């Protein structure tokens, strides 16, 4: 049986470093090529030596597909393509292609310029790598080669995020990347048609969470910000530069507009401006509201949100500041935090996940005294709020996607093992399909049951139609006679005559003969005539002929009579029929064995 093999190099029972190898129908595909935020050594990138020990990857991979521009999905791409070596096509959507290099460059700058690492990819490598990228459009079927085709679906999550449907022959896999089933302020919800793939590879970051309605969250967020501003406090919102930041900006921007608020909102600059530019351009990838109103006004052209300058932090009066990075571990957000932490009127809102060890994590866990570098301590008096604005599908969203796509098997990646286990149980129970959750380097093998297409000759079909009265009923199988020819990777069902002709074989006739003893006092011709009249009365609707050469033909069955030498009463009937008439022939022999009825004349 054909198989599909899925091996995660990263993101198997883990979050970060997404990299999944799929071999399907003889094709090898790499899905995402990400880096791990938590490591600074070799574990940062996926272990490409799994594919080949030495040499380039081009020979072993048919294509690479990147689902979206987050670094844990594309961070290792220049390393793989330029340093390990891969020259094949890399597929990503247009927005991803536009924004990805900005993030990679930023990532490179931080690691090389700030941390002073060597042996890292260079700007030129990023450029070279991006040259290998083939952009994808939504719902566009792209033929990678003759057999392999891929198609992108909208995934929500961030601008340009896509789910990919990969198809070879009748086998197919859907890879979701990160996706979001609830729409937010700037993006729509993920959607896929009923493509019934063999495997659905889904992320499971929030496998055990069912989120509250997003409106509650938004309302709480706005209310908190609003109250704080009215009190004259300052609000700090640490964000990652792209994705959630834009959503929160739009949320605040519209709120400010609606409520006629005057307090300034600042956004700490950096790569955001460049990225914002792309957000303005890729309007088609955003949600209904932005798409409908951009003619009057592009929502990403903010009226109330201005660029932040370091000196603004000391300005009196209320303000809202978005600052990077999101976990308060370094940079501008930390600086501002230090300045504002002492005043209880101020507030910090953490809109997402914080890794252990960061200040964000500490204050969220209620720590009120922080140790800073140089033995200094910082009293945290400002209010700390947590608002999950993460744009991943929750447990219910994952279930909804399964319902939409109706896969035959399920495979979970990009999540914690314990949570996956829980969701796996649910999926198996609810949909009664198999669910896999391989660890990194572990291979999940799924045998598929592909349907085998067979060509059938039109003449055969027509003949069958002519025989069988009513139209074929799709619900009921029907038997037909024909010859199956397997020739050069193709299957054909043809009529036997045609098969003989094609194969150059002679037709062989198979005839059965049978003797039947019969007690009949009449002469041979009379007996024959009696048989003729008997059959005529029994078999209505068949052509029965009494031929002058002393035989009776029923269809193609020949019946002859000869009397035995010793007893003129005992007649011997000779029946002969071909293989095709087996049914009728055996019926006749049993009928005649019973003897002729006496009432015949």
């Amino acid at each position: 049986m054909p198989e599909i093999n899925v091996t995660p190099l990263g993101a198997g029972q883990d979050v970060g470093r997404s990299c999944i190898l799929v071999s399907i129908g003889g094709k090898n595909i790499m899905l995402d090529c990400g880096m791990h935020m938590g490591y600074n050594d070799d574990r940062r990138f996926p272990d490409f030596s799994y594919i080949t020990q030495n040499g380039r990857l081009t020979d072993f991979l048919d294509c690479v597909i990147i689902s979206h521009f987050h670094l844990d999905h594309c961070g290792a791409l220049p390393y793989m393509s330029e340093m390990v070596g891969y020259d094949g096509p890399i597929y990503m959507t247009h927005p991803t292609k536009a924004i990805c290099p900005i993030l990679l460059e930023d990532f490179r700058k931080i690691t090389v310029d700030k941390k002073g690492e060597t042996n890292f990819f260079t700007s030129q490598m990023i450029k070279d790598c991006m040259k290998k990228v083939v952009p994808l459009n939504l719902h566009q079927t792209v033929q990678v080669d003759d057999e392999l085709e891929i198609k992108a679906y909208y995934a929500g999550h961030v601008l340009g995020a896509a789910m990919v449907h990969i198809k070879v022959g009748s086998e197919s896999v859907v890879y979701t990347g990160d996706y979001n089933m609830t729409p937010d302020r700037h993006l729509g919800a993920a959607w896929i048609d009923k493509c019934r793939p063999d495997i659905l590879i889904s992320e499971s970051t929030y496998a055990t969470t069912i989120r509250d309605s997003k409106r509650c969250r938004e309302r709480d967020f706005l209310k908190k910000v609003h109250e704080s501003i009215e009190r004259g406090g300052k609000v700090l919102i640490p964000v990652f530069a792209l994705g959630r930041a834009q959503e929160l900006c739009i949320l605040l921007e519209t709120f400010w507009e609606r409520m006629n608020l005057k307090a300034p909102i600042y956004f700490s600059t950096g790569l955001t401006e460049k990225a914002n530019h792309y957000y303005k351009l890729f309007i088609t990838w955003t949600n209904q509201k932005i798409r409908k109103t951009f003619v009057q006004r592009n929502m990403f052209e903010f009226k109330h949100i201005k660029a932040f300058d370091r000196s603004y932090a000391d300005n009196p009066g209320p303000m809202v500041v978005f600052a990077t990075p999101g976990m308060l571990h370094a940079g501008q957000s930390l600086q501002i935090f230090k300045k504002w932490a002492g005043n209880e009127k101020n507030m910090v809102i953490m809109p997402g996940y914080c890794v252990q060890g960061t200040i964000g994590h500490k204050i969220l866990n209620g720590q009120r005294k922080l140790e800073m570098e140089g033995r200094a301590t910082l009293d945290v008096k400002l209010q700390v709020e947590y608002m999950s604005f993460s744009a991943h599908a929750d447990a219910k969203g994952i279930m909804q996607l399964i319902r939409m796509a109706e896969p035959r098997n399920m495979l979970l990646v990009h999540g914690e093992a314990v949570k996956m286990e829980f969701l796996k149980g649910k999926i198996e129970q609810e949909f009664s399909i198999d669910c896999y959750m391989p660890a990194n380097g572990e291979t999940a093998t799924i045998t598929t049951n592909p349907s085998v297409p067979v060509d059938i000759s039109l003449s055969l079909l027509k003949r069958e139609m002519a025989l069988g009265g009513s139209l074929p009923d799709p619900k009921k199988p029907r038997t037909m006679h024909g010859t199956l020819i397997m020739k050069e990777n193709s299957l054909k069902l043809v009529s036997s005559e045609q098969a003989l002709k094609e194969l150059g074989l002679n037709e062989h006739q198979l005839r059965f003969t049978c003797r039947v003893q019969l007690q009949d006092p009449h002469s041979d011709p009379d007996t024959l005539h009696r048989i003729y009249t008997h059959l005529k009365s029994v078999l209505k609707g068949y052509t029965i002929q009494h031929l002058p050469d002393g035989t009776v033909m029923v269809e193609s069955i020949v019946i002859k009579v000869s009397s035995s030498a010793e007893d003129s009463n005992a007649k011997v009937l000779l029946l002969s029929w071909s293989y095709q008439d087996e049914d009728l022939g055996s019926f006749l022999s049993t009928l005649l064995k019973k003897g002729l009825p006496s009432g015949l004349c």
Partner: protein
Amino acid sequence: MAAHLKKRVYEEFSKVVQVPHEEAPAKKLRLSKPSKSAALHVDLCKASSSTDALQYLLTFSRKPVEAESVEGVVRILLEHYYKETDNSVRLKIASLLGLLSKTPGFTPDCIVDDAINTLGSEKSHQVLAQLLDTLLVIGSQLPESPAVRLRLIEVAYKNLSDSSFGVRTKCLQLLGCLGLLEAPLGKDSDGPGPSLAVRDVQSIISDYFGDQDPRVRTAALKAMLHLHERGMKIHQIIYDQACRLLSDDYEQVRSAAVQMVWVLSQLYPESIVPIPSSNEEIRLVDDAFGKISHMVSDGSWMVRVQAAKTLGSMLQVSPHFLEQTLDKKLMSDLRRKRTAHERAKELFASGEFSSGRKWADDAPKEKLDTNTVNLIASGACGAFVHGLEDEMFEVRIAAVEALCQLARASPSFAEKCLDFLVDMFNDEIEEVRLQSIHVLRQISTHITLREDQLDTVLAVLEDSSRDIREALHELLCFTNVSTKECIQLALLELLKNLNKYPTDRNSVWKCLKFLGSRHPTLVLPLVPELLSTHPYFDTPEPDMDDPAYIAVLVLVFNAATSCPTMPALFSDHTFRHYAYLRDSLSHLVPPLRLPGRKQVYGLDSVDCGSGSSSVESAQLFLQQSLNRVSTIQNLEAAGAPELLDLTIRDLQRLGELQTELAGAADFCATFLRCQLLLLKALQEKLWNISVPLILKQNVTATAAAQQILDESYKLEFLYSGLENRQLATIHHVRLQAKALQLILRARTRPGLDSLISSCEKFLQDIESFQRLFLTELPHLQDSFVEKLLELLPRLSSCKPVEVVKILQTTLRQSGLLQLRLPEQIHRATATIIEPTGESDNPLRFTSGLVVALDIDATLEHIQDPQNSVKVQVLYPDGQSHVIHPKPADFRKPGPDRHRLITQVYLSHTAWTEPSQIEVRLLLAYSSSCSSRLGWTDAMDGLPPAEGAVEGTIPFSKPVKVFIMPKPARR
């Protein structure tokens, strides 16, 4: 042969009917009949190729065909049809047959046979489908002919097994439209196999629910729905099949299936269906509700909208199913929920799933029994939570509306959905926000807002959109709150709102009025604080012009009406302010029974006593007055003017006292005034003097005639709820006025030419009156018109002078028309709220430039304000401008109520000192507007009255605005 004969009969029959009916145009028809079909025939014969023929047919199809020549054309087309080999031409012919059989006045049963015959020989599926479509048209043109129907159904059955989806779809359509509702009684009717036709249409259609083509499946569902619409009772067996189609791959099938399931749930709400994979049973309507709820998270948004809308109308669903629609976290399978209800609740409470609101609350805890919780929302779980969070605002709006309908039917559900609706106040699309506020208003009778809920509701008061704020004020008018803190909170927020948006003044006051009168006991403990009184010290008297202070007073005074202990808490100046406000804002401040103060019983007492009984008595009085007037036999009768005068006065007073009857009383009074004017005009002395002597003296009569005309237009267009009969009466008055004008003209201007044309015009008017009110003529006995109509043959033949004479006598002899009142008459009214006209500060602007004047007005009882309401600006120099407000400037806050918020641009040359301009609203009735009855009234004969713009009625009090255009500085 029989068919042929029948055809003959029909042909002749149709001729017999039409010859006497339209005599004049028959000539034209006879001319065109041969030419039309002949032209086509020639064209088709000339056509060398099929493309040519197609071209001819296309041009032919653009022209209309008269009913008489249809049959000929059909024959030619059919003849050509049989000859034609090209599919597209045959297709066009088939579609033409359908078009032609729709021609009004043509009965297509004569071509049924031919159309059916063509089916037999047709090979192309497309043409076949088109032919069936034609048959469908023919069939729906002949609803009264069961025989034809039976034959068509027969045809549909025969073609149902066709291999092309188009043909099958059309057949199903045909069955849906024409399928017999009950088995025909006489089997002998005609045709070979009624037995087949009698076969159950439903079972045949339902066979195609499983067709391989989605379009056919959709058509089958639609056909079934059509049968339902036509009144056939759909069998319950269909339910299972329809439910299966809910999970179809194609959205249009799913969408139709949702409708089908809904229909069945309405038909058999109480029957019991088993639940697969368990031995429990539930009501069908509950089951259907669960299934449709499921569709709210469908992949296609069209289906989601459909499902969300449908949910709203399933009112019979059991309450606990209903409540599940708001539950997202309770994942327990619906069906098991009844048995494991408690356990599921505990699970939910133990917090297995994180809500994402608190940090790290999704950290893995001890292993729970995972078998008890189902993640997927089977059944109704969380349908509305999904719908309200949907990506498309269409779905969200549909969900909000559905919530509204369900909540209105079930108070407990209303209570539960409150939080969700309040959440919607924060939607990104204003339409959705507005809708959810409206919905909350509609269900607010069921609910009492808690403090935290009120808090979120009030947060929206700061919205910059005026519509939202006003909707919210409206909502607050109807809300019940639970504690005095709520009242305080609401007042505080409203005052904040007032401060931020001073234009909301009226709306905020009104809101506080209702808030006060609804919660007197909650306001009571707040009074000292609100009025800032102190037990020992005198506090300073607040500023009476402060809108915020007025707002507080409005709240307190309204609460005091039903709380007699409250006035004891007032300080002296409060009483003074009461007296002032009672006078200046009487619509906001109710009369209070104040101790030791003399009540002015006047209008107030009437207000208090205005119960239903007083309405009845007023109605009676109105009727009596009218009866009294009807005793006046003819206009010459003595004492008639006095009686009319008296009655008019009575009616006017009645209208003031009884607001419910104001429209009717006003209408009657205006009508009677017309009569009175007519009476007076006729009784003038001038009629007795000979013609040459009266040149200058008929001024009053002319003015009266003009006034009657004007009033008659007011009668017609200013009042809504008029019936045909009243319209006839109004037109009758107008006719009288015109007659009067004609007579006067004849007497003053001896020129014959103008008289002739005027006479002709008048005669035309009479004719059109007759045409319009043919049905009303019996009611107009003994009236002016009736007499005129009797004399009409004579009038049209004789000389103008004689006509005038006849008119004069009939006018004088004709009796007073009795006025019958319809159920409800409302007078269109308009009140300009802004500008108030009180300001002494002139609006200064540089001459030659423009200044924008904000106008805010409420309009009542106006059908189509977008087209009919105009703003008129009158400058002191007599210049007047009419401004057409944009359609978007009109809002509709309630039934029969409109709000106009617009800006008017003013400009003028420099003035030396400020002066007042007048702004008022006009109701336009253009000649096209007056054709409410399809009659175009040419108005050119009438010179416009002074101050009135042609074709408009001023219907609001003018407001004066002080403006001052300054000369431009150099």
